[in-house]
């Protein structure tokens, strides 16, 4: 049913349609609205049977999900940012144990400095954990991906993380078609675990595996992820067939057919980029966009195919590896190995910095001109940086940079966004 609905609410209702049996919740912005809504549904009895467990930390949340999943229950949780890092040991563990947990990640920056706003640092911090990671462009896609995530996770015994931009999507009220129960049931059969804790058929799960088999275990996990590269498009296709809506898949291309410059990105920023691309197209610039929906496993082949015709690839990402550069860029570069492309990394939107259409247009123009350096930080306030560096050079006890920058800038709040001149 088509509704004007908050993203978090859409996720909560869709997850409920997936009939989760155990949901663990620890509040962290901007994930709270999702678990609040599920909690209310469980308490009201509209989502049943389901155990909703208020845990004492994200570490416990993932741990409860591990226990529940290993006991054969469809398990779900949601988190963000620091919460993901706090549970990271369990995140790895869930993947290592091959437990098909589904988790929503309301993407948010990681402190310090503490920051509640959106970027992708959290998702990137666990990209090697062995989870499948989807990035949603819209709330519609985020909702749809959850159905596909459960299906995929349980088919392959791999946990799946659905990443959606914190606040930008989670708190956005927009049009979402919420599926009906019958449709979801047809897409998602009951959970049949590959292994389960059962007194009637006891096994020991979580053995200590030494050098003699550890690499094989990891390689098998890798093969399962490669299987996912086949299953993800198939499931998306089935989803489209049943719902009449294209959602998910590996990558999505926009106006790339004749594009010389292609921008690659993850998540909700793709919408703004598409607007910018449309405008630049009107100016005759041959630009296109490739959105990567499935970040892990990384669809190297699909990315290569999508970018083959481009001469310049601009990877715009909301996270970066300090001391080096783009994270996604590295993966794209690996995928394009052997091809002759100019590859540019643009770091943007860290800690909730708005990525504006205007800035993107300027970026595209610069790229088309061939003036874009290998690594760019979009809308970086170089003046502030220079002032701080001067301060640091001048006095040993220069104090904390974050606070210095804020003081420089004067009072801010959730004020009107600054228009970059």
């Amino acid at each position, binding site marked *: 049913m088509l509704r004007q609905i908050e993203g978090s609410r859409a996720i909560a209702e869709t997850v409920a349609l997936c009939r989760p049996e155990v949901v663990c919740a620890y509040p962290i912005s901007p994930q709270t609205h999702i678990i609040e809504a599920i909690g209310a549904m469980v308490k009201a009895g509209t989502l049943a049977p389901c155990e909703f467990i208020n845990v004492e930390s994200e570490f416990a949340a993932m741990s409860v999900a591990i226990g529940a999943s290993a006991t054969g229950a469809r398990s779900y949780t949601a988190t963000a940012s620091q919460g993901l890092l706090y549970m990271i040991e369990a995140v790895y563990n869930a993947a290592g144990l091959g437990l098909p947990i589904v988790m929503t990640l309301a993407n948010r920056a990681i402190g310090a400095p503490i920051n509640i706003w959106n970027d992708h640092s959290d998702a990137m911090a666990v990209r090697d954990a062995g989870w499948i990671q989807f990035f949603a462009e819209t709330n519609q896609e985020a909702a749809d991906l959850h159905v596909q995530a459960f299906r995929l996770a349980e088919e392959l015994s791999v946990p799946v993380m659905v990443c959606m931009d914190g606040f930008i999507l989670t708190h956005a009220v927009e049009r979402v078609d919420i599926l009906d129960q019958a449709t979801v049931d047809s897409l998602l059969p009951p959970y049949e675990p590959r292994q389960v804790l059962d007194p009637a058929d006891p096994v020991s799960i979580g053995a200590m595996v030494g050098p003699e088999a550890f690499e094989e275990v990891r390689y098998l996990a890798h093969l399962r992820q490669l299987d996912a590269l086949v299953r993800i498009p198939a499931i998306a296709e089935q989803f489209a067939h049943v719902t009449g809506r294209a959602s998910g898949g590996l990558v999505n291309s926009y106006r790339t057919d004749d594009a010389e410059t292609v921008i690659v990105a993850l998540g909700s920023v793709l919408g703004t980029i598409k607007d910018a691309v449309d405008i630049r197209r009107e100016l005759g610039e041959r630009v296109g966009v490739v959105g990567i929906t499935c970040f892990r496993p990384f669809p190297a082949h699909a990315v290569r195919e999508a970018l083959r015709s481009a001469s310049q690839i601009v990877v715009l990402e909301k996270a970066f590896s300090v001391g080096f550069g783009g994270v996604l860029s590295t993966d794209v570069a690996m995928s394009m190995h052997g091809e002759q492309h100019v590859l540019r990394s643009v770091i943007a939107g860290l800690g909730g910095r708005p990525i*504006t259409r205007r800035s993107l247009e300027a970026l595209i123009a610069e790229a088309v001109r061939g003036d874009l350096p290998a690594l760019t930080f979009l809308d970086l306030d170089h003046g502030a940086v220079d002032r701080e560096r001067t301060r640091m050079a001048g006095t040993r006890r220069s104090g904390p940079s974050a606070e210095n920058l804020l003081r420089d800038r004067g009072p801010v*709040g*959730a*004020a009107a966004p600054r228009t970059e001149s």
Partner: protein
Amino acid sequence: MFQVRIHGRGGQGVVTAAELLAVAAFAEGRHAQAFPSFGSERTGAPVVSYCRLDDAPIRTREPVMEPDALIVQDVTLIHQVDLFSGLSHHGYVLINTSRNFSELGFEDHFREFSQERLLTCPATEIALEHVGRPLPNAALLGGFAAFTGEITLDAICQAIVDRFKGAVGERNAAAAKVAFEFVTNAKEEFLHASTN
């Protein structure tokens, strides 16, 4: 696309206002996108919310940089926040106050603007009278409907009563209607004054 930016403080229903507007627009068959920009989620802290209205799907996720309309729920924010940033000279400005622009000292700033798109509305007073609490958001939405014509009063009222069940919804809808009347009258007065 019609873009609205709403300023206020935590607890004043700023985010809800944008959501109600989006829901109302959706009900009228339009595409809409409402989202907030939070500071820390505390009562009294400055809060901004946005709402885009369009006949086509909305893709952009950037904050509303250049609003077509500005709703200011708390004019005291003028001292903290660049309230009018990005506003074009043809933009709508609806301010919750019982004073007028010149009494607020805004005359100079808006000298170049379309004067018929600058309005104040005593939404808090209306809310206190009809809702019983100083929550100006519903009244301002009623005023916004009358002011811009981007949405109907009926859609606003329906969104309000859908969101707030029972008497609370009814009272807020009543406040919206009163503000709608107030703004309608103010517009007429302005026309009357300018034609004279």
